[in-house]
């Protein structure tokens, strides 16, 4: 899994590519935490190029949402892949996240 970061006036976008699984999800968790230290107004996770996500990855998405809420930052998932959407649907969590088009 690879994570690129872009920063703009609105906040930070983490561009995730590759599988988000038990091995790689801690890296995404650390990156979200690191971003929050800079107190951005918003964190966006772009998940268009994520072909696979497991329950540990979904757990990180939830943690990110909780941390942002606690810090007063907006949080959204952007351009999620079909497979990510399918897993969020399966976990009945799709409606819990703010999901944006690209």
């Amino acid at each position, binding site marked *: 899994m690879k994570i690129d970061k872009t920063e703009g006036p609105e906040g930070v976008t983490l561009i995730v590519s590759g599988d988000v*699984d038990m*091995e790689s999800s801690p890296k995404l968790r650390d990156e979200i935490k690191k971003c929050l230290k800079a107190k951005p107004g918003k964190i966006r996770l772009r998940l268009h190029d994520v072909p*696979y996500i497991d*329950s540990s990855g979904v757990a*990180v998405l*939830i943690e990110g949402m909780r941390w942002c809420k606690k810090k007063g930052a907006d949080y959204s998932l952007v351009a999620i892949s079909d*497979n990510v959407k*399918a897993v969020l649907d399966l*976990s009945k*969590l799709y409606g819990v996240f703010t999901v944006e088009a690209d």
Partner: protein
Amino acid sequence: MSHGARRGSILLSKPTLSIDVPASAGYLKCVRGFVKPLFDARFDEEIAHRLVLAVDEACSNIVKHGQTWFSPRGRIALELIDRKKAVEIRILNFCGENEVDKIKPRDLEDIKPGGLGTHFIAEIMDSVEFVPDKTREGRMQLVMIKEGGSK
């Protein structure tokens, strides 16, 4: 290679396939890569993706709880049996007899990280059961069955 030829060469000639890897997160991708072509050959894309997820979640459980369930770290030993009307996935030496009751889906109304894997498995598979691992006293196999698919 045509779809049918691929199915013929991989699935029909070897109805039972197995993989045995260290119980480590780095090997989960290997397990997914092992089962995916077989599911792709038999089921449509959406179901195949779900089945890969179910197998991955079951194997993740071994990695996560390996320190208590195995001594030392242990291995993921998986058998895939391609039956006429169903696919059967057996994960050997999955857990101890006394740990079966601890493995159950949680309430999804409570939005929190963790505990989703068991829900995924139960939701995706047609049958999930634990059976005694005859070769290992006190140990259980996880047997998951998905019916249907073209063969």
